């Protein structure tokens, strides 16, 4: 579904990513984990068509991604910056419907179930500033789903949320991804979050010397679904994955 082939990105003379090869299969949930500055976000942006690729390619369904396309939705970490403060909750979701040229008369009927799915029913007429951080992030996810993308690219989406909200949203995103049969590429610096959510975890690390990020290891996560915050995290296999991947974060 989504692929990187020998993908490299440089900012000027500074290499950021080198020779990334990865494949995300349809309906797969792949997590990319790595220390800050290893190029995780750049990888996601390159796959989304937001950041130009220096060499190699990003492919969506076999076609090169050279510009953003509605089939690929991006959930940003800084939800407040990605929402339109002058539009209501419903209006923010409507933006994605406008992008798909859906007539305004159909908006209400399409927005209501999305808001319900993300626990925002009853908040449609509020403005983003009236919502908590967790709710704002739910709204951004709702807007991305309104886009009806095939792939959700999530860039540390829960990085600035409190621990409790983060766990709730982890479970909801895991459930939504499976229910809605979306393909997800999920960037995080939280190793446990990556193992908890992913079908597969890709560890990115910086090459010593030139500082460019490359893939250090790819691990299939054979933990049963649906996963549970306590039971899954106490599973001996969870701890083994954690031990195995931990060294890449140092």
């Amino acid at each position, binding site marked *: 579904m989504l692929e990187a082939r020998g993908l490299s990105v440089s900012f000027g003379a500074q290499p950021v990513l080198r020779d990334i090869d990865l494949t995300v299969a349809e309906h797969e949930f792949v997590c990319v984990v790595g220390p800050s500055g290893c190029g995780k976000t750049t990888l996601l942006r390159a796959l989304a068509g*937001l950041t130009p690729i220096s060499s190699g390619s990003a492919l969506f369904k076999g076609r090169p991604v050279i510009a*953003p396309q509605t089939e690929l939705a991006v959930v940003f970490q800084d939800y407040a910056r990605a929402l339109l403060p*002058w539009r209501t909750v419903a209006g923010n979701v409507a933006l994605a419907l406008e992008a798909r040229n859906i007539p305004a008369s159909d908006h209400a009927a399409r927005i209501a179930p999305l808001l319900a799915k993300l626990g925002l029913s009853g908040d449609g007429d509020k403005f983003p500033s009236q919502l908590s951080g967790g709710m704002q992030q739910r709204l951004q996810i709702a807007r991305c789903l309104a886009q009806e993308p095939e792939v959700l690219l999530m860039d540390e989406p829960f990085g600035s949320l409190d621990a409790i909200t983060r766990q709730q949203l982890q479970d909801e995103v895991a459930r939504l991804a499976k229910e809605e049969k979306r393909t997800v590429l999920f960037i995080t610096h939280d190793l446990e979050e990556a193992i908890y959510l992913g079908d597969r975890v890709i560890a990115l690390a910086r090459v010593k010397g030139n500082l460019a990020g490359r893939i250090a290891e790819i691990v299939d996560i054979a933990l049963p679904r649906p996963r549970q915050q306590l039971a899954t995290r106490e599973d001996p296999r969870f701890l083994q994955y954690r031990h195995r991947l931990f060294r890449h974060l140092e």
Partner: protein
Amino acid sequence: MGAAFPLAVLALWELLSRGGVLAEDGFSRPSRFFVAGAKALADGTLLAQTAQTFGAAAQALVIATVAGVTVGAILGLFRPLERAAQLTIDALRPIPSVALIPLSLLIFGFSREMSAAVAAFACFWPILIVTTAAVRGVDPRLIEVGRLLAFPLPKIVLKLALPAALPGILVGIRVAAGIAIVVTVTTEIVTNPRGLGYAMTMAAESLQPDLVWATLLWVGVVGWAANWALEKLPIRR
């Protein structure tokens, strides 16, 4: 509360005038110019002059807003264009708008358009500069949201960049509204035989200080009302 100060000034003025401290041929006195103002209001001349002056100012503001926001949005979005336009802007902006009165008179003759054109020139700059800065200051993340939704550029501008920049743009329009009135009245005093500026010139030349004062205060009151209306524009942010 805010009215206490001007009312006190008027009362003092009246007293000083009646006491012979303030010369009546220049300062008139509040009781007289309220009578003169009421008379001009009642016979319709003041309202007709107001419609003329504020009509020209409003026309200027609309023209300047459309032009200033359009050009400002383009320059704000495209840095290289802004750099390319900088010299032209810096060369044109210092031209005093009233210096355009003779030219505008040649082009438009004695007409409302003559005043509006000069005022529009004066109003264009603050709106252009504020819009350029406001659009340049829009969070690039919002533009990315538009790109990710595959909006074409005009829609990114209309749906994201301009609404995000709107609070800044409104400040520019409010500043320009004041300028529009000042310049319009100036053109009427200097050349254009219409509107409130011309009314004041005529009243002064026919030695009617009460009417000059009445018209002057009237400009202040209507200008204040116009500014209040602009601030109350139902724009949500």
